[in-house]
């Protein structure tokens, strides 16, 4: 099948990516945009490693066709940190030991971003329910729940909300994605281009 050049809006930057109809969003992000923070684990919807946000809602990158989210607002783990500091969830995962090998971490963090956006003070049971679709083979989950709980506290204490769409633009310039020789061709455009 022939490739189509599509514009993906990722972390408030636009990427022109040549993709085939059957390419998943996870593949397009990794190979097309060079954003390899989004992991591919099972590739079958069972582990949550590939979780990103589409228009603010969590979506499994491995079961979402890239063409289906053309023009939608995609957020990946790379878009989370501010220029000077990590997102409270990223800090909490590091501080609480919520990440060991780290492979599952981007998925857990993105799922938790969506949770804390709608529930600023989740109980441990609510956290467990929200992350039920994310699997971790290392931590045993307790420290992940600790991390999300801790991050929620931090966010409340700092009176600092989970980044809103406008705050997202204070993220550092992403270097990846400039390659155009990948299996899926991608080229990052200035943040304003194509909008």
């Amino acid at each position: 099948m022939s490739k189509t050049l599509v514009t993906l809006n990722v972390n408030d930057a636009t990427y022109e990516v040549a993709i085939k109809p059957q390419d998943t969003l996870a593949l397009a992000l990794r190979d097309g945009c060079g954003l390899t923070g989004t992991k591919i684990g099972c590739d079958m919807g069972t582990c949550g490693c590939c979780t990103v946000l589409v228009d603010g809602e969590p979506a499994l990158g491995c079961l979402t066709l890239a063409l289906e989210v053309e023009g939608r607002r995609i957020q990946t783990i790379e878009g989370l940190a501010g220029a000077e500091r990590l997102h409270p969830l990223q800090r909490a995962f590091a501080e609480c030991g919520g990440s060991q090998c780290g492979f599952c971490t981007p998925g857990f963090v993105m799922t938790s971003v969506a949770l804390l956006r709608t529930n600023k003070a989740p109980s441990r049971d609510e956290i467990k329910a929200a992350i039920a679709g994310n699997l971790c083979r290392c931590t045993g989950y307790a420290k992940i729940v600790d991390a999300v709980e801790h991050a929620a506290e931090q966010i409340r204490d700092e009176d600092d909300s989970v980044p809103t769409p406008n705050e997202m633009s204070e993220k550092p310039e992403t270097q990846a994605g400039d390659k155009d020789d990948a299996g899926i061709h991608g080229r990052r455009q200035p943040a304003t281009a194509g909008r």
Partner: protein
Amino acid sequence: MMILPEFELARPRSVDEAIGVARAATDGFDYLGGGTDLLCNYKWGLNTNPTVISLRHIGELQRMADGSVGGGVTLAAIEKDADFLHDFPVFRRTLDRLASPLIRQTGTLAGNILVDTRCIWLNQSLFARKALGKCLKADGPECRVVKGSIDRCYANYSGDMAPVFMVLGGTMRLAGPDGERTLLLRDFFALDGIRRNVKQKEEIIVSLDLPSDAKTLRASYQKFRVREAWDFPELAVAASARMDGDRIEELSLVANAVASIPLWMDEIAAKYRGETLSDATIDAIAEDMRKAAKPVKATLLPPGYRKAMVGVMTARALREIRGDVVTEKQSGEAA
């Protein structure tokens, strides 16, 4: 990584346009809802087609109002609809135990009703299936579960929403090349793991609709699964009743995930209408349901155990309907 096969992706904006694309796709097509079932099957190389028609961009499939839920409405959207859950509280628990929150985020109602039947011989990679030997449902000569069966597949129906809509008297609106038709959901399924239902290939599920008197039914869905975080049902029971005091005025029962379709147990339900919903009646209904369920070895757990658990789940559903406090792990219960 699991590789998707090559296909063309169509993104129609209306039901009519989608049906038009389907009719033109003479080499074969599949509709795509949230893709959480279809794309997994495609990655396994199961019955793939060269054209995929996405229904995600069709506004008329996204409507939800007053007991009518569009086929394209996501399970997460149903979960968030306070009015719907207020009117039909049984869906709160059903959805809570259906797949994972991430799957529910994109999985749609129509996709759930049409979720493909599952089998331990089938839901494997192509590599594994080549090693194990293929089967009737995907390019093989005969069924591996019921050996010798060359014309019927016994794979397990594993959707969680259909049985609940069935016991609430739900209807389905279908649109196809010959126009629209509406049928009771209980008449939709056809007992074969390949054919599965009476839908014509080009027909699209526009909506599922609940009658307004369904709001006054008491209903319960009891699902048995191996993993609590998320899992397909190994078996489940849906029940609804209209009570007149402690007398059963109306009763509907479905045994789910013990056959290729959700089983509408009308004979058993009819036998107990008019009875008092006593412990003895509950035990009798549970025993009838247990006897009627005839699971085969298409899932992880042994069929004998699943059959026994149909009785346990029936009793739990009826106790919940009666107003007893029912938890997932009942002390003193056979399990």
